[in-house]
């Protein structure tokens, strides 16, 4: 027993080492991100908005996404990950996914140039230069993507750039389910 006591620190160390190793590994593979927080909006109605479109300057209201299953993608030209994400959004738009852009705390002319150069996957891009819609969405940075169902309820929130893996693993199954439910009803 006395002998065993001597090994307690070593055992504690081993347990902690294994724990940290596993966490670190999950962070490395992208399965776990300590920065990711559950959204307070999950399963709650998405906030309403009434903001000008970045390109046309016309005011766009929440009516635009009424009765639609839609992705709300928060992005900005100052956001490095948004560069990586953009091509995949174009692919998604080609597949018929409806994406509403929110240009978060950004300058409209830069955003216009971005859309001209890289292509425009969005049905509209809201000019949220003050960050008010971002605040209502509980955005902590860009990019962030929300999946809103046809009743206007937020079903999913993803922090970080979308790519094929994330789409297939988290968005696709839920989207298919929502689409089936919608066409079934």
């Amino acid at each position, binding site marked *: 027993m006395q002998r065993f006591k001597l090994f307690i620190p070593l055992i504690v160390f081993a347990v902690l080492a294994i724990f940290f190793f596993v966490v670190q590994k999950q962070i490395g593979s992208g399965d776990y991100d300590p920065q990711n*927080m*559950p*959204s307070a909006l999950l399963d709650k109605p998405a906030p309403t908005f009434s903001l000008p479109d970045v390109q046309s300057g016309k005011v766009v209201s929440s009516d635009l996404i009424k009765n639609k299953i839609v992705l709300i993608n928060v992005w900005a030209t100052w956001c490095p990950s948004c560069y990586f994400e953009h091509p995949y959004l174009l692919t998604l738009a080609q597949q018929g996914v409806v994406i509403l852009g929110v240009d978060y705390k950004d300058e409209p002319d830069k955003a216009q140039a971005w859309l001209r150069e890289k292509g425009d996957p969005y049905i509209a891009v809201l000019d949220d230069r003050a*960050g008010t819609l971002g*605040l209502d969405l509980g*955005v902590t940075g860009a990019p962030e993507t929300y999946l809103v169902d046809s009743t206007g309820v937020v079903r999913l929130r993803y922090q970080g750039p979308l790519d094929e893996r994330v789409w297939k693993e988290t968005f696709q199954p839920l989207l298919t389910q929502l689409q089936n439910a919608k066409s079934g009803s």
Partner: protein
Amino acid sequence: MRRFIFLIFGLLLSALAHAAIDPYDFDTDAQRERYRHFIEDMRCPKCQNQNLAGSDAPIAQDLRHELHRLLIEGKDDRQIVDYMVSRYGEFILYNPPFDKKTAILWLAPLGFIVIGGAVLAVVIRRRAKLNTVDAPALSPAEQQRINALLNEAPRASGRKLAKNLGKELGQESGEQRS
């Protein structure tokens, strides 16, 4: 010189002041106090181990701005907390209410105190037992020897003893020389 040193220390202290100071005007001191309380007690959603007061992240600036707006509009504390929680979740509160999710946060310290107390009690009890182990009684001869030793050694440290001893020896040698 002394003034210079004070100046240097003063400059060091200034780094401890909060990084973010926004020039917000308030109608009353009470509002300012509430604002200060809110930014101290709410967490920055982006940099998760800083409060709103200490963070320079754009989102923290926005939230401070929003807090100021809500305070000026005359919203009460409850409304302001609800506003923030409905957007960022209870995560934003450094002082979350007690419920199922936060129970472990609130109860864990109590648990640790109980565990610590139990360990302490066990250790103390064991020590007490060790001390009361019955040693075989001393024989009269042994007792005598112990008494003799105890009387011989005054309550002085070893060094003092050695010094006294040296003095005595010196005196003796001096006496011999004369």
